[in-house]
């Protein structure tokens, strides 16, 4: 069903079905929930966007957690110890 109204709106700011399908296929490798579903064109666009957001937030949390652990490591190691030397060689 042709929708004149939507075609009149700026095409640059709407995501077309083709583009969404393309995005879903690329995100499939990252998002297992979508991978398990049926065909890509059946997955709702809003679900894909939501899962993508969640995934990015998850990655942010991981970076934060890893930075935490690393700064603790640098703290707990005595400056002159052999462990400190190893860590510094890994990092710097």
């Amino acid at each position, binding site marked *: 069903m042709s929708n004149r109204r939507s075609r009149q709106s700026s095409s640059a700011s709407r995501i077309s079905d083709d583009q969404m399908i393309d995005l879903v296929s690329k995100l499939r490798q990252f998002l297992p929930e979508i991978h398990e579903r049926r065909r890509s064109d059946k997955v709702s666009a*809003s679900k894909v966007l939501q899962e993508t957001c969640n995934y990015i937030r998850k990655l942010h949390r991981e970076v934060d957690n890893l930075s935490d652990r690393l700064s603790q490591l640098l703290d707990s190691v005595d400056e002159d110890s052999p462990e400190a030397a190893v860590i510094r060689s890994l990092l710097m």
Partner: protein
Amino acid sequence: MQPTSSMNEEFLKKWQMGLQIFRPSIDNTSVHERKKAIKLSADVAMASLRKGTTCWSRALIEKTATEDNFLVRQMLSGIKAESLINKKLPKKIVCHRKIVRRSKKILRRKSKSASEEAAAKAKRLVKRRTQGLRNVVPGGELMSNDVLLLQETLDYIVSLQTQVNVMRSIVDAAEAEIER
């Protein structure tokens, strides 16, 4: 479309260089300061992989520069990427919600069928989720073009995975070393 080993290597090298430059914020400082330095250097390293070709990476560099202008600039010159700072960013698009809502109200009055209402509802949901994406991708609020936003998102995800993979390997190795 996965992080390549060359991306991992390049990130590691740049991050290591960055950590050296951030030493003053790492040695003999609080755990909080140290964590901030670690994250900043990791973000600059990640953003520099794209050599200024993506909007998110330019926006991220700008953001790290506001947190520690001096050290970020030092790091950029250390990894030979001075040009990345002050790269032009697209102008911030201000969305005039009132106007959009008013025009949507007028359109809505005309549509009476239930299926049209459902479609409109779905569109609104997509719009909301897209806005959510803008909030988590650096520079997202500057990308009014949804297609661009999606492309940038994909690139950002691959870069984040690189950052996470390398950081995880280092931290795991370091923790294993301590436990010995």
